[in-house]
């Protein structure tokens, strides 16, 4: 058995954008051949701006979405073509925590029922056992028995996110896919939730896929970080390497654009020109060529391959090839 919990091989996914009668249909290119692996016990973060395909990536792994081509491997099994009934038993090994703590909890169910739902689906525990497990889980995330009787709207954003985490934990998953789990929370609450994520990883030996747009949050939690742009993985490396030695011009720009809460901090900011191109009409060649200050002739012709440039450091950029 390899050390990889999840492996993606050249995964592609498009969505139909508009049906046209006389011309060919338009597609949103969400994932354009993404290959990566998530090792057991690590936290891999995927960073990128809106429309880069990072959320699609998470949903492809737990099969909420089917891929167009490529392969999804989980625990050394190719689950790409599993039907819904086949995938259901797998679902308890990979759970999701969503961005919006307000929308991801059913407003008409009590917290105890929300947290117990995975247990109901995946185990044949008695009602009493389920309830005890729920209380235990709520205590793990810093809530108590009294909260179990409440409804979602009575909780603050941070508390709701903790309920979401408790639900994800209930079936002892191996992998937790966290899609922007703290971006809807206030800063002081963000820190609470991140700390809970870190503690649970130690206590339950979890593997995380952490999807975020915020490079400063990602630094605290990740072991490795992948940067995505327009459906391509443009750089993936260890946390230390990424912050110290970013190779892709987009990663560099992204790092320099993060506002820093320290007015005495002076630096040269790279301000990118223009907007992110639409994932419907993708630029030819490197997707970043419309905004890249180093773009060369070749960048407008071919998409650079993701290649190893150092130990555990892969970049997709022509600059690093020459």
């Amino acid at each position, binding site marked *: 058995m390899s050390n990889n919990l999840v492996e993606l091989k050249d995964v592609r996914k498009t969505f139909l954008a508009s049906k046209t009668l006389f011309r060919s249909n338009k597609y949103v290119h969400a994932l354009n051949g993404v290959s990566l692996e998530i090792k057991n016990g690590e936290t891999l973060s995927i960073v990128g*701006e*809106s429309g880069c395909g990072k959320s699609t990536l998470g949903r492809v792994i737990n099969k909420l979405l089917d891929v167009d081509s490529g392969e999804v491997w989980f625990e050394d099994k190719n689950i790409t073509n599993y039907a819904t009934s086949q995938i259901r038993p797998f679902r308890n090994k990979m759970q999701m925590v969503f961005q919006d703590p307000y929308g991801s909890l059913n407003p008409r169910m009590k917290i105890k029922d929300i947290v117990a739902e995975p247990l109901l689906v995946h185990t044949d525990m008695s009602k009493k056992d389920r309830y005890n497990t729920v209380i235990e889980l709520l205590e793990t995330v810093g809530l108590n028995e009294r909260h179990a009787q409440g409804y979602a709207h009575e909780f*603050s*954003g*941070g*508390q709701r996110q903790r309920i979401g985490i408790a639900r994800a934990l209930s079936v002892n998953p191996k992998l937790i896919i966290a899609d922007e789990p703290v971006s809807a929370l*206030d*800063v*002081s*609450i*963000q*820190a*609470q939730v*991140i*700390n809970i994520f*870190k503690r649970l990883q130690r206590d339950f030996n979890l593997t995380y896929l952490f999807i975020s*747009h*915020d*490079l*400063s*949050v990602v*630094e*605290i939690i990740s072991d490795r970080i992948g940067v995505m742009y327009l459906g391509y993985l443009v750089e993936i490396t260890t946390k230390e390497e990424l*912050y110290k030695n970013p190779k892709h011009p987009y990663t560099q*720009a*992204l*790092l*320099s*654009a*993060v*506002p*820093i*809460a*320290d*007015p*005495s*901090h002076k630096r040269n*900011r790279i*301000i*990118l020109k223009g*907007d*992110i191109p639409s994932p419907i009409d993708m630029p030819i060649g490197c997707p970043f060529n419309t905004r890249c200050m180093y773009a060369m002739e070749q960048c407008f012709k071919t998409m650079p391959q993701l290649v190893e440039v150092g130990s555990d450091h892969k970049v997709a950029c022509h600059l690093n090839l020459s």
Partner: protein
Amino acid sequence: MTDKLLDVKNLKTEFHTDKGNLTAVNDVSFYVNNEEIVGLVGESGSGKSVTSLSLLRLLPENGEISEGEILLEGRNLREMNKKEIRSIRGSDIAIIFQDPMSSLNPVLRVGEQLMECTKLHLKYTNDQARKHAIDMIKRVGIPVPEDIMNRYPHQLSGGMSQRIMIAMAMSCNPKLLIADEPTTALDVTIQAQVMELMLELKEKNKIGVLLITHDLGVVAEMCDRVMVMYCGRIVEMADVNSLFKNPLHPYTKGLIASVPKIGRNSDVLPYISGRVPDLSQLPTGCKFAPRCSLAIDKCHIEEPKLIYVGENRQCRCHLVNERGENHEQ
């Protein structure tokens, strides 16, 4: 006195709800000078957005300004009638909101919306307004303005629509710009562009800006002075450098400490425990006391006053107040 562009004194805003009267903004006093960016920072529910809506009297129906004065160059906005306040909106004070997509009318072309303001307030003719609008689009850094004029809002990207919103806000040469979370809905690289643009416009047009945000990073990079709000009250006011170097109020301290910083590489983030209390269940005494690790008995009984603790620096905390008095003795 008269050099203050906007001077807000003891502003109190209440909402009449089925849970009773809720005070969303309480005893808020501050000023904004010309050519100055003042930040108003707070978490959700701190009353920062209600403050900005109160300034322009754009509160929803159940909201009411119950006390205080809002002086724009000496004129009290609170005492103006509807017609007068309407002539202030958009011309003397402009506002940009968080979500550029929903602040533009989806059924009108961008150009028409841009021309509306100058036609209304400056009585421009169609041609003048069109020329001015094209000029404004150029100034916010969008190429091919003529093309943009004919587009509908859904054909613009998020960053582009926020630029259009800024162009719209700036088109009548306002004296004061209120920006309510102007970059929150944008991607980081686009946020950097918009921040740069706002700084540039402030320099060129010599306007005062009230920047409302929850993002301390944005504050640090843009503001001259900062006010921190909590539960509808200002808990600390200072210039940006002293605030970040030496925060006085425990809430400010906690807030600054809990911001993740690139390169700090710490393992566990400090955080403020608990949650912001509901407006209908505010604690007596200091509103931050239940979450404050330094709280003394007095904090739970008596609400501290906002007092000057240095030149141009205010803080609302019993501990700091006492230290200040000792210091004077």
